[in-house]
């Protein structure tokens, strides 16, 4: 057989029927459903009198519309009142496992899937959410779908898909101390554009990926969609298998041995052809932050905002100067020292235990600056429990952070957890689009350490600097 890429191998293993010209009917192994996009499609299916084809491969949880306040109920937000009971009712009627608001496993769908061992190497995962690419961090083929496709998957457990072009991003070297996978991917998007990988599935490879912990690989794959790719993936290796082993829904015993043997085949063949290859020297990447309203509007944390005139396409120049207007910034400004009113540590990009540990290292023994509203929103109940066992919650609350319940929270303004117009937020989430955190909100995307440092300093600050100064505690 001809040499194939990792994506092609997984793709081929899921073909139910071929329509020609790169369009295939693929089997879906895991369908994840959430409160925002699930109820409408479940309702559509019921309207058509169709049952859910494979409820045993479908898993649901509320995350987008729910409040993350301690003591919350699903009645606390307008959207939650509408959608969470609908999700509950429809999943119950269809026999779909729901991790409800009071379930000890509830959380953001892209955090919970991997953590429960629902996401496995080599499986296809879809969800009515564009960040389903996150699951690629475990070597799964995951992508986001719209509501028509969502209904299609519910009805048939398959999806009609175009075979994507193949891109490999080789990350050589190793990330420096204090530089996060988030910085690497923001840098990549900054260099190659928010459509740099449009139409491609992206495989991340190279020494920086080999040495990257599995949670970091999920962060990297999470922002594949911000790079224009529906799919991001890392070949599974021993670190992946260690991560998956013993998870609640992961195979065990003889099944585990069988699975492992098959997963070891999941790598691009040495002579597999990619339509495009990009190399990036991970060692040269420094902490990054966005200055504008596209994830491609990224700069070095200690750099200066580039001149919009430096953009190649005229339309991009205009977009960049509009973005500066929205952000209340000027070309040539430094971001270091710019006052912030909000800090959000959370979202499916950066809310796993390793992220909270990174943040806690900066925060420990320090205080959140006056006038800053700083939140830590763990990605799941499991992350929250583990953090509490490690005492991280006390590090955060002692500093003046709010320690909240799992959910999407300030990543997306649908749960009434907003940044007010004109105010500035450093966020560890993945989108700085106009209106994403609320109308008029000014969002700076960054890694966890940079967000934590901003909370302490009350302005955009360099965590490496802070790490050198002694804390009192």
């Amino acid at each position: 057989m001809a040499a194939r890429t990792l994506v092609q191998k997984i793709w081929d293993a899921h073909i139910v029927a071929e329509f020609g010209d790169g369009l295939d009917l693929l089997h879906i192994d895991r369908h994840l459903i959430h409160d925002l996009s699930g109820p409408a499609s479940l309702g559509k299916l019921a309207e058509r009198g169709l049952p859910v084809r494979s409820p045993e491969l479908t898993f649901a949880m509320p995350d987008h519309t729910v409040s993350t306040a301690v003591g919350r109920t699903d009645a606390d937000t307008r959207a939650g009142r509408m959608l969470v009971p609908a999700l509950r009712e429809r999943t119950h009627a269809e026999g779909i496992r729901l991790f409800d608001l009071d379930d000890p496993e509830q959380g953001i769908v892209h955090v919970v899937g991997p953590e429960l061992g629902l996401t496995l190497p080599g499986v296809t995962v879809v969800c009515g959410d564009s960040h389903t690419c996150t699951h690629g961090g475990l070597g799964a083929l995951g992508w986001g779908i719209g509501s028509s496709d969502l209904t299609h998957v519910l009805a048939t457990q398959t999806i009609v898909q175009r075979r994507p072009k193949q891109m490999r991003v080789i990350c050589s070297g190793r990330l420096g101390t204090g530089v996060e996978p988030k910085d690497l991917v923001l840098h990549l998007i900054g260099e190659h554009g928010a459509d740099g990988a449009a139409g491609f599935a992206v495989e991340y490879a190279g020494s920086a990926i080999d040495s990257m912990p599995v949670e970091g690989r999920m962060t990297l794959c999470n922002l594949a969609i911000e790079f224009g790719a529906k799919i991001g993936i890392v070949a599974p290796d021993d670190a992946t298998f260690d991560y998956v082993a013993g998870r609640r829904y992961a195979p065990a015993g003889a099944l585990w041995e069988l699975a492992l043997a098959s997963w070891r085949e999941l790598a691009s063949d040495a002579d597999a052809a990619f339509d495009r290859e990009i190399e990036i020297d991970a060692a040269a990447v420094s902490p990054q932050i966005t200055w504008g309203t596209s994830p491609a509007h990224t700069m070095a944390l200690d750099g200066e905002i580039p001149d919009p005139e430096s953009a190649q396409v005229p339309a991009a120049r205009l977009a960049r100067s509009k973005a500066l207007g929205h952000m209340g910034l000027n070309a040539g400004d430094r971001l270091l020292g710019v006052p912030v009113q909000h800090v959000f540590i959370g979202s499916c990009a950066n809310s796993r235990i390793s992220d909270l540990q990174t943040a806690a290292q900066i925060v420990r023994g320090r205080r959140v600056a006056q006038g800053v509203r700083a939140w830590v929103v763990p990605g799941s109940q499991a992350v929250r429990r583990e953090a509490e066992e490690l005492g991280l919650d006390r590090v955060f609350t002692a500093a003046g952070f709010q320690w909240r319940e799992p959910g999407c929270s300030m990543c997306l303004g649908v749960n009434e957890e907003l940044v007010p117009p004109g105010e500035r937020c450093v966020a560890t989430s993945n989108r700085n689009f106009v209106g994403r955190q609320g109308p008029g909100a000014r969002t700076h995307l960054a890694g966890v350490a940079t967000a934590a440092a901003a909370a302490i300093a009350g302005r955009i600050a360099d965590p490496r600097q802070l790490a050198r100064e002694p804390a009192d505690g």
Partner: protein
Amino acid sequence: MDSFTSVQGAAIPLQVPDIDTDVITPIKRVMEGAEAITQYAFEPLRYTPDGALNPDCPLNQDAYRDAPILLAGANFACGSSRETAVWAIRALGIRCIIAPSFGDIFFDSCFENGLLPIALAQADVDALAAHAGAGEFRVDLERRQITSPTGETVPFTVNPVQREALLSGRDSIERTLGREDEIADFQQRDRELRPWVYELAHV
């Protein structure tokens, strides 16, 4: 779903790159229901911060009222998977979007909603946009060809299966349900090969 064979009319030049689906349908409006989704489609571009219609936005200009074609910038409709973006654009009367590149999820969703997305080189989109406002364009899916007001024609490619779906207006769910035997066969074979996918512990 409505079928699509061809459309004729004005083309709106909106060549801003990276217009994301949060801009096309802001989440606040999504939660307010179908009417708000349409009324506030492209809200940050179509409205000024004080809530008035922005006369500078081509979507608001008389010349492009009821135009069925949108000439968009690169990476059009990137971001969130929300299909409301497709619905809002359809509700504005648009049936065809021509852009250098699209958000992948949006691109596929268009075909499920009777909307034709066409990817052309930036220079070709620019050339078409140069004639926007100068008369009627025609997009012919059967012949896979765009005709500009000056009579110039530009060919485009479209996946044959997706083209067929648009031409017939047939729902993909119906088509796939007709393949239930193949799906059941696949699952049966696959269960032998990868039993761990189907036999989950502790469900």
